[in-house]
């Protein structure tokens, strides 16, 4: 089959009026004025509801007396694929193993959530949070105090009543 060329006959500007198109456009505008359909979300006054498994910046859970739950077992820096966790373990005055240094570089983090999954004491969690703006890059390395201060809700990566998904 030979290739055919379709010839378009468009109306020339001088032979047509813009009026009809303008009126139909304005009709649409005025229709929305009297019958508004809300699509714009008024962020930040209105907050988005995050998906239950949203994985945002980390939270370190604490005991009732304010100590971190972390026991410095070293599994999260081991499992971390982005190598963004720095951990130095030690012993506190009550003989408990605890992290002397615990830092997460949130810039290097890929938010896979494996640190939370691997944690044997449910200390480190990814969180329901995404508003992380800072003025300097250095502020994105969260140290232990900062991680314990985070007050946003943590993510449930699995159903607490059925942790193995059976």
């Amino acid at each position: 089959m030979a290739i055919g060329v379709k010839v378009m006959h468009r109306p020339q500007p001088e032979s047509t009026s813009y009026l009809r198109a303008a009126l139909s456009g304005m009709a649409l505008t005025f229709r929305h004025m009297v019958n508004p359909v809300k699509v714009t979300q008024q962020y930040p006054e209105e907050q988005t509801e995050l998906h239950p498994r949203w994985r945002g910046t980390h939270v370190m859970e604490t005991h009732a007396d304010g100590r971190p739950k972390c026991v410095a077992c070293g599994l999260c820096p081991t499992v971390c694929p982005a190598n963004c966790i720095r951990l130095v373990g030690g012993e506190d005055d009550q003989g408990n193993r605890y992290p002397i240094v615990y830092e997460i570089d949130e810039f290097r983090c890929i938010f896979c959530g494996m640190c939370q999954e691997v944690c044997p004491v449910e200390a480190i969690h990814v969180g329901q949070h995404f508003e992380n703006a800072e003025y300097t890059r250095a502020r994105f390395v969260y140290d232990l105090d900062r991680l314990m201060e985070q007050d946003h809700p943590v993510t449930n990566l699995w159903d607490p009543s059925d942790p193995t998904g059976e």
Partner: protein
Amino acid sequence: MSTTPPTSAPTAAPSAPAPATVTLTIDGQTVTVPKGTTILEAAKTIGTKVPHYCYHPGLSSPAMCRLCLVEVEGAPKPQPGCVTTVADNQVVRTVSDKALGNRQGVLEFYLVNHPLDCPICDMSGECDLQNYVHAEGREHGRGVEPKRVFGRDDFGGDVLFYGDRCVMCTRCVRFMSEVEKDERLTVVERGNRSVIDTFFDEGLDGTHWSGNIVDICPVGALVSKAFLHKARAWDLEHTPSVCASCSQGCNVELHTRDNVVQRVKPRENLDVNGWWMCDYGRADYEWMNEGDRIEAPLVRQADGSSKAVAWKEALGGLLARAKELQGRPVKAVVSARASNEDLGALAELVGALGGGEIVYRSPRSAEEIVLQGFPTLARRKDLAPNVKGAELLGMHRVGADDATGGLDKVRAHDGIVVVLGDALADQDERFGASAALYVYVGTQLPVAARAAHVVLPVTTHAEQEGTFTNHAGRVQRFWPALTAPGMARPAWLVLGALVGELSGEAVPRTAADAYAALAEAVPAFGGLAYPKLGARGALPMISGAAVSSGAKGA
């Protein structure tokens, strides 16, 4: 008890009658082993590791952990592999349903009171209980009763005891009574309440070998205080090395993380140290991590200040000056902590400069500390690893037993002075001030190197490849575990380059080259090469002299 080290088997074999052997079948494989071998050891020869706790090749076998029970055809019940000797035509199954089922049951009992605190346990990652349960244990525990709790106990020395983690294999008790022969530990109470304990408050303080019980503990019950919470087992890199704490030359492994030595563990070598090492050697690693190192060659300027320069410039200037002074007598001071290659290169350099005297200073302790159950192992009097090597190279000892003094002649020498590795801790900044050329080759910059015309930064033995000669003349290799700081290079490379320029000989490019050159030049090192030395070292082939004089060299 199998703590007797094997005598030189290869030479003894031809005269002795051929040892009787036994042929049996283990897991379908036919195995031929000497008569009297246990099933567990016979299985090892075909690469089958039968799980066990209480058995250790260096200790007696009480057969009490019940984990190495294997199925022997014809026997009414499973047999403990660690004490059952092999018999002809025996058929052994280590992974049959019966054997596996037995192990699964035994492991479940071990977990009845085990706290499962792997996240905070230092043994995690290299723990036999963890490994065996992971490989063969039940997926879920069935225990519902509360676990008994002992808490932890400070045993003294470098040892902490976590009673809850203990599997009661009693290896530690047997080590103290059979090998160290200083009975400090025992089992108190019975049954479920039994626990390892010390006698009253005596503890392990004052023992010299108790660090070994941490190594042989198959679980995390005995842990080292120095290593407590320092690193996870899976983060550590293991580098074979030789202990530099005395002239025994124990084979060790340096465990490093992030370019820092975290701990030292003994490496099995039945001809030298068996499975053991002393507590002094075990604690002697912090110096490898010291940060105040010389990182660049330093050349003294006309105004007396030192300037960091590139290697080429430092060696070029040094060569020009050395050629001017060639023929002037050389006095060299070396450290007995330097490797054979380093010392050999220095000896060649002194020869190329026209000859001179090389002395070394080395600390000596008053007495040997012998491991009673393994008498070929002792903490020797010479507290440096390569005293024998220095002696074989014709260097002689000066100074007192605390490695001070004896350098008056060198101090006032007006020819060429070379110092390799000696920290010159007892000397002041006037040392070598009258020398025509004073070269300091070392790792750290002491006050006594203030007058040096050239300071050359070199590596420690933990940062380079090389060999030490132990008190008996055995040459043993070590490997680099750390990255050298800055521009520091091995001394054999630096000095070898100088020798090459002075004499026109080939410059050694590798430590193996350097050793080959040494073996050629010095008959006492002859007949050996790196591939022959392997990981466990060897005695030089020729010199009966080197071996026999080793006895008094201790």
